[in-house]
């Protein structure tokens, strides 16, 4: 549905008027922002008369894209998570209004404050934007440490799945099912799955995890970090999984030697996180979750490729991801070899 069509725009203005407790709302600008394979983001500039939000407000409307992923949460849950982490002092766009029903624009959405910066990973990693990579990485480690202080006991969020007794098994089981049932042979993935099954670490106390913490999912401007985005994969889990996902080869955007998000070496990021969180990272656990991260991305790459090959979605980016599994396979072999040598 086109959000900028006349009738939809008028319903959206009425919704904003009610939600903001305003006298009148005039939508000045409404256009879709780049990126977002799973969610759509729209820039929404509104002139608001009366109420707590009176004035010209620069906002972002977030809603489901045409293709939704099964692992991704609904907008109401994402809104609740973003409210929680914003309240806890994690730097995210402040979420303002949730519309859980589909009568306004045809699907649920929420509205948050616009934040400056770009998310383009290749530009941040190349140093075109975002300032010093070392400073950026340190700040990201601090944000992550703050997020990981949230616990299911005190910080329950409706809509989030209850924490699993064993985060590793909860992550691994669906990945293993996918590989076994894919209909094509993936021997290195199977090798990784066996290793992950046989080396499961003792479960950690669950904390709130971002679930897709990586370069490409935060905003940075000329001065540096501005906000953490994309909370639709958040859930209770093992904090080392977020740290490992950040170090996945694909999220280095070609800067393969800077393992942590293409910004700094892995050890530097670990140190920054340890300083911020006061928790020492066990290298064996971090490595375990890096094997899991490689397997998870391997499965996502196959799913994306299948959206083209089997689902008929015409996108070169999806198609190219069909050639990504080999990178994950290299990491699975290398990391499991390292671990076996260390044992």
């Amino acid at each position, binding site marked *: 549905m086109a959000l900028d069509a006349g009738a939809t725009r008028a319903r959206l203005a009425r919704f904003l008027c009610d939600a903001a407790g305003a006298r009148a709302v005039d939508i000045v600008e409404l256009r879709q922002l*780049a990126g977002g394979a799973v969610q759509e983001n729209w820039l929404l500039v509104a002139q608001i008369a009366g109420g707590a939000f009176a004035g010209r407000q620069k906002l972002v409307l977030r809603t489901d894209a045409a293709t939704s992923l099964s692992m991704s949460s609904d907008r109401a849950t994402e809104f609740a998570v973003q409210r929680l982490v914003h309240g806890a002092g994690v730097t995210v766009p402040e979420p303002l209004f949730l519309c859980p029903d589909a009568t306004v624009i045809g699907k649920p959405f929420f509205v948050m404050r616009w934040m400056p910066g770009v998310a*383009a990973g*290749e*530009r941040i990693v190349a140093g075109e934007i975002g300032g010093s990579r070392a400073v950026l990485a340190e700040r990201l480690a601090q944000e992550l440490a703050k997020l990981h202080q949230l616990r299911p006991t005190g910080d329950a969020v409706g809509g989030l799945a209850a924490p699993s007794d064993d985060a590793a098994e909860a992550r691994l089981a669906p990945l293993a099912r996918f590989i*076994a049932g894919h209909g094509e*042979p*993936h*021997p*290195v993935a*199977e*090798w990784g*799955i*066996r290793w992950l099954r*046989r080396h499961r670490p003792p479960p950690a106390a669950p904390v709130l995890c971002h679930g897709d913490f990586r370069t490409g999912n935060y905003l940075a401007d000329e001065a540096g970090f501005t906000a953490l985005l994309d909370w639709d994969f958040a859930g209770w889990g093992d904090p080392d999984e977020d740290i490992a996902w950040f170090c996945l*080869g694909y999220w280095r955007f*070609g800067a*393969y*030697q800077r393992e942590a998000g293409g910004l700094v070496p892995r050890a530097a990021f670990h140190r920054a996180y340890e300083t911020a969180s006061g928790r020492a990272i066990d290298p064996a656990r971090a490595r375990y979750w890096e094997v899991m991260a490689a397997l998870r991305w391997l499965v996502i790459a196959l799913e994306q490729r299948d959206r083209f090959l089997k689902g008929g979605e015409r996108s*070169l*980016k999806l*198609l*190219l991801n069909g*050639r*990504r599994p*080999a*990178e994950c*396979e*290299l990491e699975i*072999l*290398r990391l499991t*070899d390292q671990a076996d040598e260390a044992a």
Partner: protein
Amino acid sequence: MRDRPDGAALLDFARAALLGELAPLLPAERRQEAAHIARAMAIAAREAAAGDAPLRACRAALAELLGEGDLDTLLRRLAAAIRAGDYDTPSPQRAQVRRLLWAVTVQKLRESNPDYLAASGLDQPSQNGSP
């Protein structure tokens, strides 16, 4: 017969023109698409240059371990055996499987992403195919 230039030369020049001349004229937010197109062309060019030799080598290595069969059959047999836990514990077979998996992975990356291989210090694999 074919007239010159050959397909490899055409792809090579077309890719250089796309990246060197066309891409800089695109708005910043669309340059990544040109990079994707160039990447697809580079993979196709490397695959064409390699021909069937890597697949034949892979099949032969699998046959040595698992007996005769075509490549797909042997890969399925290997995947099923790994899933069943046949290579969980140290053994000469496990070492052989591990070397084979390394060799196949390195061969795939030579075509799909040689930069990744080089950054991993594996662009010159040793004779047994493992680092």
